[in-house]
């Protein structure tokens, strides 16, 4: 099939904070020189700006203040200053407020923002400057000539479940461009293709946490806007890293969530269910009493830190934001880093376009900036927890006084699924919290509240390399952990026609969190973007 071609000057894949910061900064640099922005394209797989943006979120203003000074005063964005914060330690029945909030979790000076709204706000500015932002268009494939990146192919539209073109079929565009900025967020599918094709990676493998979130409407005055609580402890056993959050939003809404490190040993670990359990804690139950769940979302976050960053630039490409793993896992903050990296990328792109430099200058810019300064200090933080909570706290303490080094220059790390144990090697499976439909919900009900929608008649976007592995090996060895780790009930084991268990997929439930791409113990699942426009609507 032929794909129509379009020449582009720059293609930015992803309209999250990193991609939009890059586009906005670049547009301004070009404007100052009177250069054209006609052929700068931002691709966004979501139906609308912000649709796939999900976070808690508490943002360090540093990055956005550079990009948009005075942002805090703009009611359109509605950034809420953090008024008070605390760390709560949960045991099964109690919540103890930590007398001292650890400095990394001090949030004074930070802002609670809706990432969805941030993307809309930035996106409007980007579009106002005349940069093309194409929503409902996914970057599906990369175009290579050997190791040379030539451009990005967008998704084919109108392909049926049987892989045949439907009446309204439109082939994806081959965007030929000398510059691609990968800003796809966590576990970017094109970034994965790029690094795979070029056999590149970070010194440590990237590791992730899965955050499961709900927004609740609460009775007036229950939880003040601007209050930020983080929780440690229950429901996590000490060998499982994770924590929860409660952020007070406007209009008597709260954002609550739980992050589970995707490095667990028990294959039956179900992060969605852990979150449901979290809500049954007496503290949470009291908080949510009389309230109503309004929205749901789930997304992974890269936690590997500095040593897990892949190479950040090639001759024709740059990686920014979460796609590069630029998250401070200690402070649980990445938006400011995404924005700053996007801006630095824009400078490199601008220099490249005007012949003053090349994209390969970008990593040096990152090294010289506060991005590195901040991430260097926490470079071994997450890895310190790989042997449990107490070990982690110990290492964190040592790292604090050694400028982040800790006991060794680089703490080694394993990819998440490597830690998964086989069936029969662990004790009893975890206790599941049954949904009651009022406080706790099943996955399908939650997915409904994420606004997730996909064109039903399209090929399945979860590519299973070998179905036999799922139905014959995994079912015996790990018990099909996908059924547990997927927060959207995409994966189900059903009894097939022959009476044997088989994997059944519900791809239209997918909330684009990428957990399956990360955690499959056989690396049997590849997540690719479904037809553009599908997915959640986190607004």
């Amino acid at each position, binding site marked *: 099939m032929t794909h129509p071609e379009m020449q582009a000057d720059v293609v930015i894949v992803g309209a999250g904070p990193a991609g939009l910061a890059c586009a906005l900064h670049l547009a301004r640099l070009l404007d100052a020189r009177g250069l054209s922005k006609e052929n700068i394209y931002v691709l966004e797989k979501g139906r609308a700006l912000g649709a796939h943006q999900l976070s808690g979120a508490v943002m360090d203003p540093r990055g956005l203040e550079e990009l948009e000074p005075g942002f805090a005063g703009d009611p359109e964005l509605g950034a809420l200053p953090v008024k008070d914060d605390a760390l709560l330690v949960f045991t099964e029945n109690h919540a103890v407020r930590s007398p001292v909030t650890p400095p990394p979790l001090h949030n004074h000076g930070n802002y609670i923002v809706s990432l969805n709204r941030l993307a809309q706000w930035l996106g409007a500015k980007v579009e106002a400057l005349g940069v093309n932002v194409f929503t409902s268009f996914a970057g599906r494939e990369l175009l290579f000539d050997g190791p040379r990146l030539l451009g990005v192919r967008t998704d084919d539209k109108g392909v049926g479940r049987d892989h045949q073109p439907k009446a309204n079929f439109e082939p994806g565009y081959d965007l030929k461009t000398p510059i691609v900025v990968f800003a796809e967020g966590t576990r970017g599918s094109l970034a994965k293709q790029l690094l795979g094709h070029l056999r590149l990676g970070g010194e440590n493998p990237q590791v992730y946490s899965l955050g499961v979130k709900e927004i609740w409407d609460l009775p007036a005055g229950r939880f003040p806007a601007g209050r930020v609580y983080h929780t440690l402890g229950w429901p996590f056993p000490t060998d499982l890293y994770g924590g929860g959050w409660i952020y007070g939003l406007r209009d008597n809404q709260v954002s609550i969530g739980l992050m589970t490190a995707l490095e667990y040993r028990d294959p039956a670990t179900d992060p969605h269910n852990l979150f449901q359990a979290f809500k049954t804690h007496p503290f949470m139950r009291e908080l949510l009493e009389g309230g109503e769940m309004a929205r749901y979302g789930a997304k992974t976050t890269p936690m590997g830190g500095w040593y897990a960053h892949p190479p950040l630039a090639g001759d024709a490409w740059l990686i920014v934001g979460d796609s590069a793993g630029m998250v401070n896992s200690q402070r649980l903050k990445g938006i400011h880093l995404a924005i700053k990296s996007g801006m630095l990328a824009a400078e490199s792109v601008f220099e490249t376009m005007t012949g003053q430099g090349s994209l390969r200058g970008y990593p040096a810019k990152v090294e010289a900036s506060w991005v590195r300064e901040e991430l260097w200090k926490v470079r071994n933080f997450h890895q310190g927890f790989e042997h449990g909570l107490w070990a982690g706290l110990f290492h964190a303490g040592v790292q604090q006084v050694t400028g982040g080094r800790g006991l060794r220059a680089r703490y080694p790390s394993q990819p998440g699924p490597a830690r998964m144990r086989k069936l029969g090697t662990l004790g009893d499976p975890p206790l599941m919290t049954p949904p009651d439909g009022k406080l706790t919900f099943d996955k*399908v*009900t939650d997915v409904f509240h994420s606004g997730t929608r996909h064109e*039903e008649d399209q090929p399945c976007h979860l590519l299973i390399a070998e179905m036999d592995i799922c139905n014959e090996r995994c079912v015996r060895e790990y018990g099909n952990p996908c059924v547990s780790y997927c927060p959207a009930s995409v994966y189900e084991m059903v009894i097939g026609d022959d009476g044997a268990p088989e994997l059944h997929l519900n791809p239209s439930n997918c909330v684009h969190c990428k957990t399956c791409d990360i955690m499959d113990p056989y690396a049997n699942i590849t997540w690719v973007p479904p037809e553009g426009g599908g997915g959640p609507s986190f607004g």
Partner: protein
Amino acid sequence: MILVITETKLTAPGKFNPASLEAVAAAQQLGAALQLPVAAVVLGADDAALAGELATRKLAKVVRLQNPALGAYNPDVWVQSLVQAVSQLQPRYVLFPHTYQVRDYAPQLATRMAGALISDVTGFRVENGQPIFLRPMFQGKWAAEVAFTANSAPGFLTVQIGAFRGDQAEAGAAAAPLETLAVTPGPSPLHAGEVFQEAKQAVDLTQAPIIVAVGRGIKEPKNLDLVRELAAALGGELAASRPICDSGWLPMDRQIGSSGQTVAPKLYLAVGISGAIQHLVGMKGSRTIVAINKDPEAPIFEVADYGVVGNLFDVVPALVTALKNQA
């Protein structure tokens, strides 16, 4: 007075649209609440049977509009004829059943007479002597209370099919007086051809008054015949929850739910459907919901009017037999 505009059924000569009786029942209820008499208008081909039926109901009179042009439906002819009838009879309210035909001409009639048409009414209440009408909004997710503004008279309204019961159209103590009114509609620029039947490519479940929906409980595609029989016995359309369509056992245009169609038929029978929220949002506006499921905890029972906990492979055949016997 309240005037009911009735409709002769298009494709069955001598057979009138049963929705007309529903409109009469609604008008009588409104009339009782507002202390207004009710009269009916009959127009269209083969209106004699309808007029005769209406005369048995409690009506102030039944007015047959006469003109050769009324032999075949045409929006301009209908509007002009009814403008004359309404101007002559001076009703306070004009009521129609919410049929395809009414939707085609009633908004024009109302506008021409400087009035408004409140469509798809499911109920009403009276406040300070003024009626407030209830109608669905946002595909049944909410309902709206709507009133005519002070300056629109007469008030036109269509009543939702099945919202009122035709068998509750009160019978009259004596035959209602029959009148004829000769109307003089002008020529119409629109020329309509014959009405014909066609097996539709895609089924429009939103228009089906009875739907039998099947879910995972059916286990295998070959068992669908069982449910088809039930649908046929009820005179309803077959529909399904998403997993059935996902597996290709039924085409996607049969799917009910957030990623399929939203329906609100007068009867929805859910067979072997658990009732996940994605499905419920597509059908919970149905007038009467019956659920058959072997799991007593299935969420479908929360929205059902009638619940049958049992094995569908036993219950459905028994139901088909019972329906055939009572027919």
